[in-house]
């Protein structure tokens, strides 16, 4: 008898502890906004190092401005993360204007930064989202081949892939197969036929990098600001036909969370991010294996932003 009572007492204590931990406002469990007199923002990011750096930058300047910041980083690709933004699970995301535009409207044809931003604004507004000031920095999607492959098949521009695509294996994120600027884009704009094989890996991430290094793929989808391209001596194929729109880094957030305090802090930051700076920071994380948070904060301190 005594044992059973002991047992149920133990169980009751456990239950109480768990519930207390739950309701105790622990950041780890909360997903929604916390009502408070300070602004608070949940910063999210997708799953590659540049995103982590940018998100850490946003978080750092916001904290300096006195905003309450929660971070939910490395959540997956845009297909997963943008809906989270739409649902309110996160409230701020570092984005690229051209990619978001084609994500929201696959038929969009805008190419310059101004055109893209103009086309984007109403689409975002319809979802209670707003794009803040863009950065000069652009990170475009690119195609990389090893130096050996480039020499063997005489590849300098993307158009050069046309005659040899059938002999090459291409690798990239799974969504490359369906995104307009991905494989369909190569076909539509450059007339490049199907590749020999498409390997679904990741977006310029460790899988693609490793596969390209080892020769398991011949052409890899990379980002133009990645440090590993230079480090490995890869050839970034030139875009000789306009496939990709402008891709300025821009913070996109939920309208109700983008208070003046938040906007001012982020706009002050955005103007300073250039393509060269971003590429340098990426190299520190990609190649030197430094921590994104450290890299972000060091740079911000240098720039006098925190």
């Amino acid at each position, binding site marked *: 008898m005594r044992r*059973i009572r002991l*047992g149920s007492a133990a169980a009751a204590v456990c239950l109480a502890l768990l519930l207390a931990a739950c309701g105790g406002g622990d950041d780890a469990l909360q997903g929604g906004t916390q009502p408070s007199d300070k602004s608070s923002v949940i910063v999210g990011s997708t799953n590659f190092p540049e995103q982590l750096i940018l998100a850490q930058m946003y978080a750092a300047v916001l904290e300096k401005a006195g905003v309450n910041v929660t971070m939910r980083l490395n959540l997956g690709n845009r297909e997963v993360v943008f809906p989270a933004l739409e649902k309110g699970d*996160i409230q701020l995301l570092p984005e690229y204007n051209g990619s978001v535009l084609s994500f929201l409207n696959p038929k969009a044809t805008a190419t310059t930064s101004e055109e893209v931003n103009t086309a984007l604004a109403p689409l975002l507004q319809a979802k209670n989202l707003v794009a803040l000031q863009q950065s000069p920095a652009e990170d475009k999607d690119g195609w990389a081949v090893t130096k050996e492959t480039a020499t063997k098949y005489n590849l300098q521009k993307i158009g050069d892939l046309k005659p040899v695509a059938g002999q090459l294996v291409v690798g990239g994120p799974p969504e490359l197969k369906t995104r307009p600027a991905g494989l369909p884009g190569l076909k539509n704009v450059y007339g490049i036929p199907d590749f020999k094989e498409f390997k679904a890996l990741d977006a310029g991430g460790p899988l693609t990098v490793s596969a390209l290094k080892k020769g398991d793929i011949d052409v890899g989808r990379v980002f133009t600001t990645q440090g590993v391209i230079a480090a490995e001596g890869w050839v970034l194929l030139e875009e000789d036909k306009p496939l990709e729109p402008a891709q300025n880094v821009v913070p996109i957030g939920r309208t109700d969370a983008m208070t003046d305090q938040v906007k001012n802090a982020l706009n002050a930051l955005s103007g300073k991010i250039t393509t060269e700076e971003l590429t340098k920071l990426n190299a520190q994380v990609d190649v030197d294996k430094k*921590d994104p948070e450290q890299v972000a904060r060091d740079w911000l301190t240098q720039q006098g932003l925190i």
Partner: protein
Amino acid sequence: MTDGPPTVLAAELIRWSWIGDHLDDIRDDLLQHLQLTGLAVLFGMLLAFPLALAAIRWPRLYAPILGFTGVLFTIPSLALFILLIPFTGLKIWTALIGLTIYTLLILVRNMVEGLRGVDRDVREAAQAMGYTPARQLFRVELPLALPVIMAGVRIATVTTIGLVTVTALIGWGGLGQLFLDGFTLNFPTPLIVGVVLSALLAFAADLLLVGVQRGLTPWARDRGS
């Protein structure tokens, strides 16, 4: 330059400074892992209990319950979580619902086996002594079924600790977040920390539950290890 035997990364395996800098994150991940596991097992037990009782009361239900739960178990956990996302978003409930379903399967099985394993004589003796069905259940059958039920709780807990790492792929992964960070940054340290901690956590939980079981069933203590 890159073909040939596999190459090990230039990055050192464990960068202790990284661990030092990220103790907060590691602690948060650990806590989240514990909370997800605890809640999943708890909800699983709460839900399994009535199901088990139903299966005992109406034996014909048992085979279908077992079959259905058996099938659910073969659905890859990744798929289950992915399929829940459109409904529950990236909030904690997606992870909890999926995790609870898996604990449920293990627990129902063990609760039924445990309760069924109680000697007929004991049950009849209790009835003869005038115990009401409820009293019989709580004072006689459950305590005797405890070893098998606890075995189920142990398996469910260790399994859940492993599964929680998979839920990182939908944003609620506890220590699994360390795996994703290590993957994205192509950097072994968070990976090693994550693997070691989750293995230790599972091992510790198992030991703890063995202790709890021994505490709750001292009469079984002499029955060998």
